[in-house]
């Protein structure tokens, strides 16, 4: 293989001071391009807000809901965003425990993506309520009738899983930022110095701070690892605990977790390719990091493809006429286009990642990552909508098509996510300064003397 690739001259490793300089340089005052982008994003968000206001006023009747299909694009997009969140925690926590060195360059952006994706996902259960102002009914609090939440319901598990996931991943992100905010503080002047001083909690890089910080980081990673696996399992049980044909499968938890990591890695690539260029971070977020992400995409794509095959096999092997009919309908019924979009994007297109040339070409990776995003959205659409559209009795069968408010809210959700991300890269170091430096060879007098 080595003879095929042109030898790339090994770039000099950056020094500690260069890491500080280059990463803090990304916090320079925003350019016109940033404001233009933010303007576009806010416009899209306004579309979402108007759509929701319209829906609150006129009710869910303005969506495309057709009995018995009352879970449509809102729940699809909810699961999509929860899934996106997962690879961030995988990269920041699981790969930390596995000591995968390549994570340091990309983990901060992924972790921020996680938090903002959960913030986006969290909106959807509320957006899809007919009476959104009663969203708090799902919380376990003593109400005037003495009734409590039904803890046997997967929807209540979901409330616990998602709110825990948001709290823990936001904490993990905030704690990891502390040493870097101190570095920004020491570089800044005036009121910025004071603000960064407060948000870094007065961190001073002392050995005692590092000692306790290191322990905390390890334990947070150890707690976040089972958490991330549990969250999408719980989301999958929102479906698998129901008896709807197409949902009621034991394979759902691992199938959803693999799909979540697949979609999240795709989204990390989609975000990082433009980000590294705009912020001049090519020296830190390198092609080899993208190649590692691509390998992760390939692996999870294979798991997801295997899960698709298993679903069909089990439907056939069960001998259950309703289960068979549901899966036949998925592939060849009225929603065939959604199913085949899903299979093409998630199972076939990622096979290109077997080629090293594709894995190391950012253009190819960017294009493939867009297909992954589309494919994974359709996966959830297929699972939710085709299953509901083809339940037990033929008179129940229906066809659902989303209407304008649903598209508006979907656009709004992407813009909501992008808004937070744009604000984040404006005020916080998007590459982990301290961790990148930790991975570099330390400055040694002896080496310099020989060198």
């Amino acid at each position, binding site marked *: 293989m080595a003879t095929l690739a042109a030898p790339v001259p090994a770039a000099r490793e950056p020094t*500690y001071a260069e890491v*500080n300089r280059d990463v803090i340089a990304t916090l320079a005052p925003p350019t016109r391009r940033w404001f233009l982008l933010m303007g576009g994003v806010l416009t899209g968000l306004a579309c979402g807000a108007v759509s929701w206001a319209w829906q609150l006023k006129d009710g869910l009747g303005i969506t495309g809901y057709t009995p018995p299909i009352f879970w449509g694009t809102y729940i699809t997009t909810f699961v999509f965003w929860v899934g996106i969140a997962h690879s961030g925690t995988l990269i920041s926590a699981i790969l930390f425990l596995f000591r995968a060195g390549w994570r340091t360059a990309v983990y901060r952006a992924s972790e921020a993506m996680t938090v903002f994706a959960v913030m986006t996902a969290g909106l959807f259960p509320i957006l899809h309520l007919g009476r959104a102002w009663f969203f708090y009914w799902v919380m*376990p609090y003593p109400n005037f009738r*003495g*009734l*409590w*939440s*039904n*803890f*046997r*319901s997967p929807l209540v*598990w979901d409330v*616990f*899983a998602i709110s*825990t996931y948001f*709290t*823990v991943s936001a*904490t*993990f992100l905030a*704690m990891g930022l*502390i*040493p870097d905010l*101190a*570095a920004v*503080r*020491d*570089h800044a002047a005036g009121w910025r110095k004071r603000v960064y*001083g*407060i948000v870094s*909690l*007065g961190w*001073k*890089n*002392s*050995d*005692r*701070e*590092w*000692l*306790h*910080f*290191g*322990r*905390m980081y390890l*334990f*947070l990673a150890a*707690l*976040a690892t*089972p*958490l991330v696996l*549990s969250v999408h399992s719980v989301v999958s049980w929102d479906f698998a605990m129901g008896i709807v044909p197409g949902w009621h499968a034991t394979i759902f938890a691992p199938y959803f977790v693999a799909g979540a990591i697949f979609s999240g890695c795709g989204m990390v690539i989609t975000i990082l390719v433009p980000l590294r260029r705009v912020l001049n971070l090519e020296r830190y977020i390198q092609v080899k990091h993208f190649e590692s992400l691509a390998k992760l995409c390939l692996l999870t794509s294979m798991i997801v493809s295997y899960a698709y095959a298993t679903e069909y096999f089990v439907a056939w092997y069960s001998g259950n006429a309703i289960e068979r009919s549901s899966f036949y309908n998925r592939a060849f019924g009225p929603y065939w286009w959604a199913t085949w979009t899903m299979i093409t994007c998630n199972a076939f297109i990622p096979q290109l990642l077997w080629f090293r040339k594709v894995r190391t070409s950012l253009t190819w990776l960017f294009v493939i990552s867009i297909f992954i995003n589309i494919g994974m959205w359709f996966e959830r659409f297929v699972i939710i909508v085709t299953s509901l559209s083809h339940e037990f009795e033929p008179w129940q069968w229906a066809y659902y098509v989303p209407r304008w408010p649903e598209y508006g809210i979907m656009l709004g959700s992407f813009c909501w996510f992008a808004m937070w991300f744009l604000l984040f890269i404006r005020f916080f170091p998007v590459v982990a300064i*301290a961790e990148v*430096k*930790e991975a570099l060879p*330390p*400055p*040694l*007098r*002896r080496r*310099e003397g020989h060198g």
Partner: protein
Amino acid sequence: MSAPAVVGVFAYLDDVVAAVAALKARGVTQLTVYSPVPRHELDEVLARPESPVRRFTLFGGLAGVSFGFFYAIATSLDWPLVVGGKPIVSVPPFVVIGFETTILLGALATVAGMLLNAKLPRLGRSPGYDPRFSNDRFGIVAYGGPALLETAREVLGASGAEAVRDV
């Protein structure tokens, strides 16, 4: 010469490690080492006791699992309502609740443990701190009586410090 502490600024990690070892050998044991990154070499030479943060994690997790199960069981018993023909106290679904609260309280207690032990937030000045310590310089601050500080000055100077000053 009534300075409470002496700080030495270093550019090289091996110098810092050697200086800490030399200071400890000469009886200067009250040290704070500033470093832009955590390094195992420093942990080894400083040989600090194990961080108690792990105990916070353990007790946070135990509190979480107890709370989760207690909450689900107590509220089910408070208004006994049979759902799906299952027992009032159905353990398998409550495991999910217990698991999530374990993680939640375990993580929050871990963070609290770090903040308490590292004495954060601490917005005042730390004597001897230099903004370069978050960039590319290491620092050793030695505390003690005048005699020990005199020793510290000497050792820091001899170990390759770029600057040694009283703070």
